[in-house]
């Protein structure tokens, strides 16, 4: 057993020492690239399916639009006895777990593979909750420790007397929209993909504390619910993903309501979404793709070329940062801008096509109306890209959970658990990825068509407006597939 421990330590030290070794926060990835044959098959299948769907829409009666509008409310689930008590217990547990994780991050082992914080934040927290949000429902609304702690504070102050009750101090400037969330998401993406210290438990714990301070300040100033929907980027991101899920949640005065609905219909909108939310969606889609791009041979070629350039070296000197960080950060800015440019171009084309019939339609309205229809493609890519990572790197929590503070405990008897690489087979990952990517694409094309039916009256305009969108979706799906087909390479540390 000492042998086993020694070997786990060796992995940990190597992985930690390599610094740049893992392009994604925490742990290595052992994914096999999608074989060329499967990649070509999937790409061809997606293109063929897109045209088949277009033909099917062209021959279907157009009165379907009204039906889908009434369909999506979903089947409201009956109330479960004791549900609110159970929810309260879960909320308290989430706060306690949060405190325990931060304490472990600050005082536990400095080895990221022996401390529960990095794996909880990057693997189980970010990737895992995104999975559950997209597939099942908005669990973050229940698990969010910042929300739950603030609820507790509200409850305590309310009992202390009405004069001490927590009330919003300022009115939230409505024109800002979710801009604070967009900025915070960008910072988070930078930390996840680029920040060299993301795996160091104590530093990560400090970042978590800083974010807690910021979130609670936002909640105290503008009100808990306002800040959750405008600034708490995780609530916004998981909330967007959960629009895809089959379990719908709606909040009313009397409490929450759960309903069952077909997948993805939550992404249909009655009105154009705010500009800042559209920006949030594009940023989220782009960073998920950028994460994959960072591990491709193409990116290491780009890095090599950029490292050789004098202007990059000079910029790194001025910023006193490693040239690699400068290049990656530039990528994190440029890739979302490319995404936004492509999307605005497509929205412009759609607006032009739709305007052909009569009153002018602004590009911005098109962009804000259709942006959520791209989300299924991002979800499919996210699920495929992280499947083996979640199942393999996620296992690190098993040994760590037994000794979270590095005090020599063995709480669950799993202290010497070794990561099982055989849990997912490459072939399983390949076929799961293909199925997911194709399904995501089909759902996106279908959603976009329904959204067009709701907006435009004549079938001619509905169909023609979908051509630019279809081209964009095929392109986006093809890029996702291409990344899966690329061997994962790590940029050599300098």
């Amino acid at each position, binding site marked *: 057993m000492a*042998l*086993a421990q*020694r*070997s*786990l*330590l*060796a*992995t940990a*030290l*190597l*992985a930690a*020492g*390599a610094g740049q*070794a893992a392009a994604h926060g925490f742990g*290595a990835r*052992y*994914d*096999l*690239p999608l074989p060329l044959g499967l990649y070509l098959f999937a790409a061809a299948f997606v293109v063929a399916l897109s045209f088949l769907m277009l033909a099917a829409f062209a021959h279907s009666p157009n009165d379907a639009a009204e039906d889908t509008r009434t369909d999506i409310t979903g089947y409201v689930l009956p109330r479960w006895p004791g549900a609110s008590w159970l929810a309260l217990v879960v909320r308290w547990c989430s706060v306690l777990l949060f405190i325990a994780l931060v304490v472990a991050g600050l005082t536990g082992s400095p080895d990221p593979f022996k401390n529960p914080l990095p794996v909880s934040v990057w693997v189980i927290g970010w990737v895992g909750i995104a999975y559950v949000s997209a597939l099942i429902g908005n669990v973050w609304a229940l698990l969010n420790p910042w929300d739950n702690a603030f609820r507790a504070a509200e409850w305590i102050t309310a009992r202390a007397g009405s004069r001490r009750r927590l009330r919003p101090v300022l009115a939230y400037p409505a024109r800002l929209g979710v801009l604070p969330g967009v900025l915070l998401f960008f910072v988070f993406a930078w930390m996840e993909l680029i920040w060299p210290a993301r795996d160091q438990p104590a530093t990560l714990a400090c970042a978590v504390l800083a974010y807690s301070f910021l979130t609670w300040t936002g909640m105290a100033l503008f009100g808990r619910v306002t800040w959750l929907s405008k600034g708490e980027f995780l609530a916004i991101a998981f909330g967007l993903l959960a629009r895809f899920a089959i379990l719908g949640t709606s909040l009313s005065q009397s409490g929450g309501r759960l309903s069952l609905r077909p997948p993805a219909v939550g992404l249909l909108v009655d009105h154009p979404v705010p500009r800042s939310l559209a920006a949030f969606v594009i940023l989220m889609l782009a960073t998920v793709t950028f994460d994959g791009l960072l591990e491709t041979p193409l990116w290491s070629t780009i890095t090599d070329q950029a490292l050789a350039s004098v202007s990059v070296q000079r910029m790194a000197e001025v910023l006193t940062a490693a040239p690699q960080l400068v290049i990656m950060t530039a990528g994190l800015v440029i890739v979302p801008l490319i995404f936004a440019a492509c999307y605005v171009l497509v929205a412009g084309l759609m607006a032009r096509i739709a305007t052909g019939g009569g009153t002018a339609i602004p590009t911005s309205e098109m962009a804000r109306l259709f942006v959520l229809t791209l989300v299924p493609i991002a979800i499919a890519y996210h699920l495929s890209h992280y499947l*083996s990572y979640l199942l393999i790197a996620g296992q690190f929590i*098993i040994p760590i959970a037994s000794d979270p503070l590095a005090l020599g405990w063995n709480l669950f008897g*799993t202290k*010497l*658990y*070794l*990561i*099982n*690489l*055989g*849990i*997912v*087979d*490459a*072939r*399983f990952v390949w076929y799961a990825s293909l199925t997911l990517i194709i399904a995501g694409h089909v759902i996106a094309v279908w959603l976009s068509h329904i959204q067009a039916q709701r907006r435009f009256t004549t079938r001619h305009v509905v169909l023609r407006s979908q051509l630019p969108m279809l081209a964009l979706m095929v392109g986006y799906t093809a890029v996702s597939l291409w990344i899966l087909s690329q*061997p*994962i*390479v*790590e940029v*050599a*540390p300098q």
Partner: protein
Amino acid sequence: MFGFATFDRRVFVGNTFALWLWFAGSIPSGAQTQVVVDVPLTAGVAANAPETFTVQQGEQVVLRVTSDIALELHLHGYDIPADVRPNEVTEMRFTARFTGRFPLAAHVDGNDRNVGYVEVHPK
């Protein structure tokens, strides 16, 4: 830190996932073919770094490493360390039980460097 070849250690401790059992059936347990892969290193780097060495799942793999300088090698995932001495053949042996793409890292003078990747393709 290194010095133990841990390749035939069972790593299935505590695994409760039924999924695994399903896949285990696809891994042959009878006569296994042995493949020998040459890994020549110069100054701690493979000729076409990062080079990819491909083997099939279930094969008994022998990585024959030669190097002009002393270094510590480590096959990630499988967790196989090796002390490589200059102008000597060092063998890293393992059964390619798990599919995936595993980095082979060299540890020279306190720096980690990727020598290449071992890809284990499914049967």
